[in-house]
């Protein structure tokens, strides 16, 4: 069972309690096996959550929730931390502005023991100066998964911002909310798109509120990619 979209205390809009240790404990309590750490435009806490959750046998996929120039949110998930950090460098190079904690909230960088190691100065809630297609291309060139976050939500969702899915956009899946049934999503977006559900948790209690169950051999990104494509016996269970 996977929750592929959670935030940490690095996201200015997330609760301060979203620290690596506490996230790991909450994920164990909810019996999650795979977590995707997707802070806004940054992966600086992914390693700490991976270490803390790894000790409890939970696999963490390092990622980011990237805001494209069109203000569409795209989840980028990677197998390796290096790929996530390389994507982060690319996004940082296209991300203007400095965070004002008093307006947006603090952007806390933490270690795996919940120690505060720093504050990210970038304006993480800003949009990167990269078009949607450019964001997706950069994720895929790093062997990552590109998923339209909360695709059915009006604010920052792909369909709300751009009306419909651009032709030829190389997405791996759509993340849909609890407001939409799978049947409704298939009718609305076409039968071809793999659909996932995740919590988009900004607070501890919300972790695992929505999840996707996959039939996989191992808890690896490549396995999830196969499940999304329905390849080699891997598939989405629910």
């Amino acid at each position, binding site marked *: 069972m996977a929750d592929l979209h959670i935030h940490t205390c690095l996201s200015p809009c997330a609760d301060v309690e979203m620290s690596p240790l506490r996230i790991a404990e909450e994920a164990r309590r909810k019996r999650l096996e795979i977590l995707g750490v997707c802070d806004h435009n940054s992966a600086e806490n992914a390693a700490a959550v991976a270490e803390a959750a790894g000790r409890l046998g939970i696999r963490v996929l390092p990622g980011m929730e990237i805001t494209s120039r069109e*203000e569409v949110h795209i989840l980028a998930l990677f197998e390796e931390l290096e790929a996530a950090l390389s994507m982060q460098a690319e996004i940082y190079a296209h991300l203007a502005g400095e965070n004002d904690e008093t307006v947006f909230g603090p952007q806390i960088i933490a270690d795996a023991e919940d120690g505060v190691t720093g504050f990210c100065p970038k304006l993480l809630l800003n949009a990167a100066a990269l*078009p949607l*297609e450019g964001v997706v291309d950069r994720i895929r060139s790093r062997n990552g998964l590109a998923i339209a976050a909360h695709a059915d939500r009006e604010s920052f969702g792909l369909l*709300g*911002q*751009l*009306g419909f899915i*651009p032709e030829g956009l190389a997405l791996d899946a759509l993340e849909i909310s609890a407001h939409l049934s799978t049947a409704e999503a298939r009718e609305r977006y076409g039968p071809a798109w793999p659909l996932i559900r995740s919590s988009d948790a900004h607070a501890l209690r919300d972790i695992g509120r929505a999840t996707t169950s996959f039939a996989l051999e191992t808890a690896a990104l490549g396995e999830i990619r196969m499940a999304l494509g329905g390849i080699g016996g891997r598939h989405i269970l629910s």
Partner: protein
Amino acid sequence: MKFSDLANRLGLTPHQSQGRSDIEVSGAYTGDLLSDVMAYSREKNVWVTCQTHENIVAVAKLKNLAAIILVNSRRPDEATLRRAQEESILLYATSDTAFIMTGRLYTLLNSGTL
């Protein structure tokens, strides 16, 4: 008012001017959420936006809009321009903000009365 007259009077910069420039404009709509524009814009409206993604051309075609005006001197994406040429969708730009452009359009289309 014909769109060509409107473009002249507003000093718009053409990016793609091949198409129905003699169309009689029915009004205008301002918005950057394409789902909202699809829901509320009306036929032959001029559309004021800062979105430059190629989906704007499809929305203009779908809703039979008169033209698209990009604000803040934004340039259309390459794919957007190509698609606008293929579909003969009028695509212009202005250095005005969305507020100013919308106000000027409102004034012109309502003969200066509020």
